[in-house]
């Protein structure tokens, strides 16, 4: 099944752009300023907390660790977070990508979103004592493996979209450390970039039955002058199953990815 959130998002962004242009006749210079004001949906600052997930006790594994397994709704950022502090090249590139309607976003071409990009789709966590699997409904119907049975990263010979992830428990919080990334994916639709120096730390804490708090620290001295800290939450999906989203089946997004 193919959903077309991105198509809608781009149409909406284009519609709001047309509206602002209609109000203010603009020169080319002004146009950039106008488009610069449009916050792409992927980067939209949330105004309020997402509604909480179902209450109840945290399930545990036989080994006593919290069990993060379940189908979770796409990760949502909490309101009022610090924006990233970018090096000049990254600031320039992000502005270019945003102003070009995210036309070159690899994710829209059915390539992986990488880490820690949030999608509006469900994802499923499957936990064993040695492994945490993250199964994505979309944008591409793929997976991430987080190894809980070793404390050292493997040597990476070829940079990866999802990186090399190892996890360990800090009390009730699973701390996932990921390195070995390529520099191809974007962090969001705004187009925040990174280099292969990227190092992502994620802290997964199942607060109660239906709420998963995710603390993310992005360290990439090649792109950001200080670590970028993001707080997100996912709520447990109890109503419906994950669907089989096959991006390559009918990627109507590509037709919309025209840029300027």
């Amino acid at each position: 099944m193919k959903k077309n959130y991105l198509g809608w998002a781009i149409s909406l962004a284009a519609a709001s752009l047309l509206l602002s242009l209609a109000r203010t006749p603009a020169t080319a210079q002004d146009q950039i300023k106008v488009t610069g004001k449009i916050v792409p949906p992927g980067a939209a600052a949330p105004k309020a907390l997402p509604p909480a997930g179902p209450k109840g006790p945290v399930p545990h594994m036989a080994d006593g660790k919290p069990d993060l397994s379940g189908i979770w709704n796409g990760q949502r950022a909490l309101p009022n977070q610090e924006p990233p502090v970018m090096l000049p090249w990254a600031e320039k590139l992000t502005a270019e990508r945003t102003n070009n309607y995210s036309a070159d976003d690899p994710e829209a071409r059915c390539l992986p979103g990488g880490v820690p990009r949030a999608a509006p789709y469900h994802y499923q966590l499957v936990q064993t004592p040695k492994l945490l699997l993250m199964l994505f409904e979309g944008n591409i119907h793929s997976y991430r493996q987080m190894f809980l049975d070793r404390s050292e990263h493997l040597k990476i010979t070829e940079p990866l979209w999802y990186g090399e992830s190892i996890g360990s428990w800090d009390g009730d919080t699973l701390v996932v450390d990921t390195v070995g990334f390529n520099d191809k994916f974007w962090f969001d639709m705004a187009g925040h970039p990174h280099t292969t120096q990227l190092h992502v730390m994620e802290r997964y804490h199942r607060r109660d039955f239906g709420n998963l708090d995710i603390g993310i620290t992005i360290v990439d001295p090649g792109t950001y002058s200080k670590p970028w800290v993001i707080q997100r939450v996912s709520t447990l999906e109890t109503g419906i199953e994950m669907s089989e989203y096959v991006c390559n089946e009918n990627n109507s997004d590509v037709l919309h990815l025209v840029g300027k």
Partner: protein
Amino acid sequence: MRWSILLALTWAAGTLLAQSSAQYLPLTPDGKGDLSGGWVVRDSTNLPDDLPYRPEALKLWQERKADLAKDDPATYCLPNGVVRVTSLPYKIVQTPKLIVILSEGNTHSFRRIFLDGRAHNLDLEPNSWTGDSIGKWEGTTLVVDTIGFNDRTWLDDTGKPHSDQLHVIERYRRPDAGRLEVQYTIEDPKDLTRPYTFTRAFVPANREIQERFCTEQNHLVGK
């Protein structure tokens, strides 16, 4: 003294025997077959050629062979479905209520087999690439029942077709530590005159699954 030595020897021999038989029948702590690990197909990835096709389906298969598989969904980075396999590794992650099969290729994706006792539910996806799979244990053999397919996947690289009436029953068992055997029974009243059964052996992959995205190397999609 002699008796105690004999007893100790018997105990040691018993332990060794128990360990070696455990190697022959890998089990999970709850006594099910342990299917987990990385696996590759041992022999040909293709099915035998004696499927009991109805004339229309046979004609379609011959056309696909004649045009050198130019419409192969795999070429367009579309999923292989359940019956068709690649020679790349698969990884089985087993939990009591859910088994996940990760594939390295053709699409770097996953398949879920639900063991929580649910019935088939095709409300969300009446016709999907990988269908709706539910499984149950018969002793140490996992029996997986899958329906809800589309008619777009090929059963193997040669283009063997199937219809959306496809019903696949897989029986997963570990005959010994070095092997995973899967018996497939394919029913498809639209395309086949009778159910067809074949068996495929998998051996340990001996490596972790690697990241491989078809779309990245493919000039036909995503551009």
